[in-house]
């Protein structure tokens, strides 16, 4: 599967930019929440807690959409439509710590309530849309 994330937008995944992830509820309506994420090769990877709404939704319907907008310029963003191809507990605790380093500069994720089980979700992008609006020039660059 070719890498659909354009090179000039990869910085949004390298910087501590919060992604919004949308999933589908049992009755078909959408749900959207912010998550930490990163790229692993061509896959977008995020971390959540087992049993959360997004987890339950994805188990039933793996289609998700992630959107990240540039905190320095919210008119520049990427929308990734795809599906979750892997859900795993393996390595999820180390992974959330790795993301805590990226997003908060901490060695460990600050909250670990007892009984909470972390899971990694890996998303295969299927369609990617970008918008890059340079406010100085007022032009839309697609």
């Amino acid at each position, binding site marked *: 599967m070719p890498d659909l994330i354009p090179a000039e937008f990869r910085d949004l995944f390298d910087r501590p930019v*919060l992604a*919004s992830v*949308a*999933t*589908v*509820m049992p009755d*078909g*309506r*959408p*749900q*959207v*929440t*912010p998550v930490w994420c990163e790229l692993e090769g061509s896959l977008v990877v995020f971390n959540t807690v087992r049993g959360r709404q997004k987890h339950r939704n994805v188990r039933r*319907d793996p*289609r*998700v*959409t*992630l*959107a990240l*907008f540039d905190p320095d310029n*919210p008119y520049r*963003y990427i*929308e990734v*439509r795809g599906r979750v191809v892997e859900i795993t507990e393996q390595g999820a605790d180390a992974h959330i710590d790795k993301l805590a380093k990226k997003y908060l500069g901490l060695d460990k994720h600050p909250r670990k309530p007892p009984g909470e089980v972390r899971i990694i979700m890996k998303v295969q992008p299927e369609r990617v849309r970008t918008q890059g*609006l340079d406010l100085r020039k*007022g032009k839309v660059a697609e």
Partner: protein
Amino acid sequence: MPESIPANFQDLFSKRAFADLATLMPDGSPQVTPVWCDYDGTHVLLNTAKGRQKDQNIRRDPRIALSILDPENPYRYLEIRGRVVEITEKGADEHINKLAKKYLGKDLYPYRQPGEVRLLLRVQPDRVRTYGG
């Protein structure tokens, strides 16, 4: 059952907080785009251009979701699930200019395309959750 936005989170609407708006594509998969927003005490107000994907999606299925993060603290946010209860051209031009003032500091929305028709969307929140309050 409509829910209101808690008073201690309404400040998000006076800041330049973007909302990530999720709508449903024809095949039922979600689409997400960042949008400007505000709140009139009952409905969340959004503005878009007629014919855009989100407009088409909402006309087919008015159920939407919003994630609105505090620009000063992204770990403080609103999660809303609701439906668009009104789509109207009435007042939409004034509204986009009001949003342009809030988000860009400009009196007139500067990105109008020729022939563009603005639409004001009123969202009824059915479920509101707050985080980091």
